[in-house]
């Protein structure tokens, strides 16, 4: 879902950068307030793991592929949507600057889609779903799926605003592909949460008002 430079006119890309910078500032405020010494290894490992797993494109039908985004995972494990913005921004900067994956002028849009939308949708849908299922894993799966699917639809709207995709066809094709890629997102999110929960139940954020472990 990494938008390349050519897909968005520079004035719009600049606007996305401004919005992204506001969320980056808020994510730094989150980090300043919530980051404790015992959380540092988890943040570092999550960021590295998310970077690595984003390199694995899994084939889906229609000659297409997709990879995990990881925002829902970061937000759920660290207990804040701003944690996803923090982690995904680092990942996207390294991807864009070192590997040309995702444009630089449009990096603000990529941070909004994958970090902000992914993080907020993932975090709040997880929080709403845990009490419903009384189990964190199906909640994590659906939160992961939704985070990717909604981020893809937002990307399609940005493409329509940019004049790159017609709105309906953009929503249809982005929705179709990412409904399938979302299964990868949901599955890996649930598995990763299981692994972290098993290794270190103490460092994972509690979904508020719900029973975990």
């Amino acid at each position: 879902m990494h938008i390349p430079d050519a897909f968005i006119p520079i004035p719009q890309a600049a606007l996305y950068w401004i919005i992204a910078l506001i969320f980056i500032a808020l994510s730094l405020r989150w980090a300043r307030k919530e980051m404790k010494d015992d959380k540092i290894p988890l943040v570092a490992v999550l960021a590295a793991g998310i970077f690595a797993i984003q390199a694995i494109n899994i084939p889906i039908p229609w000659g297409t592929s997709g990879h995990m985004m990881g925002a829902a995972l970061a937000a759920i494990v660290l207990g804040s949507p701003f944690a996803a913005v923090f982690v995904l921004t680092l990942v996207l900067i390294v991807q864009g600057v070192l590997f040309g994956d995702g444009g630089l002028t449009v990096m603000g849009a990529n941070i909004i889609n994958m970090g902000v939308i992914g993080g907020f949708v993932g975090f709040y849908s997880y929080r709403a779903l845990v009490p419903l299922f009384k189990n964190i894993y199906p909640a994590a799966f659906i939160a992961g799926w939704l985070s990717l699917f909604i981020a893809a639809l937002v990307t399609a709207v940005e493409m329509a605003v940019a004049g790159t995709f017609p709105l309906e066809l953009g929503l249809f094709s982005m929705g179709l592909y990412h409904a399938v890629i979302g299964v990868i997102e949901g599955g890996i999110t649930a598995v990763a949460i299981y692994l972290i929960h098993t290794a270190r139940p103490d460092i994972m954020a509690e979904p508020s008002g719900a029973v975990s472990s």
Partner: protein
Amino acid sequence: MNTRTFLFAGLAVALVIAAAAPFIASSNPDGLESAFFGIFGAKEIQGSEISEEHAEAAEEEVTAITGNEFSFDSPFPDYTIEGLAKYGEAAAIIIGTVLVLAIAFGLSRIMARPE
């Protein structure tokens, strides 16, 4: 599991994924790219054949629409290292993984510092 073990176990998992990525990843276009090719006539949205010729034209066409001609030569374009094939890609992704780990660790340390 103590914190040190957790950190190293997590890093080990990330590095295994990084090293394996180029050998197992699909080279099909990703969702956004595939939608782009579909909309610009280089493939059917629900088909899988990509016309190389149309794909190139599509890229010129979209640049003409947005006027965003910005381009930037990244050191390891598309996770490749010049002259090295798949092993170079594995190395590039490992470098990226370690770099992300170091930046995340360093920045988190700074953020966690008391006033």
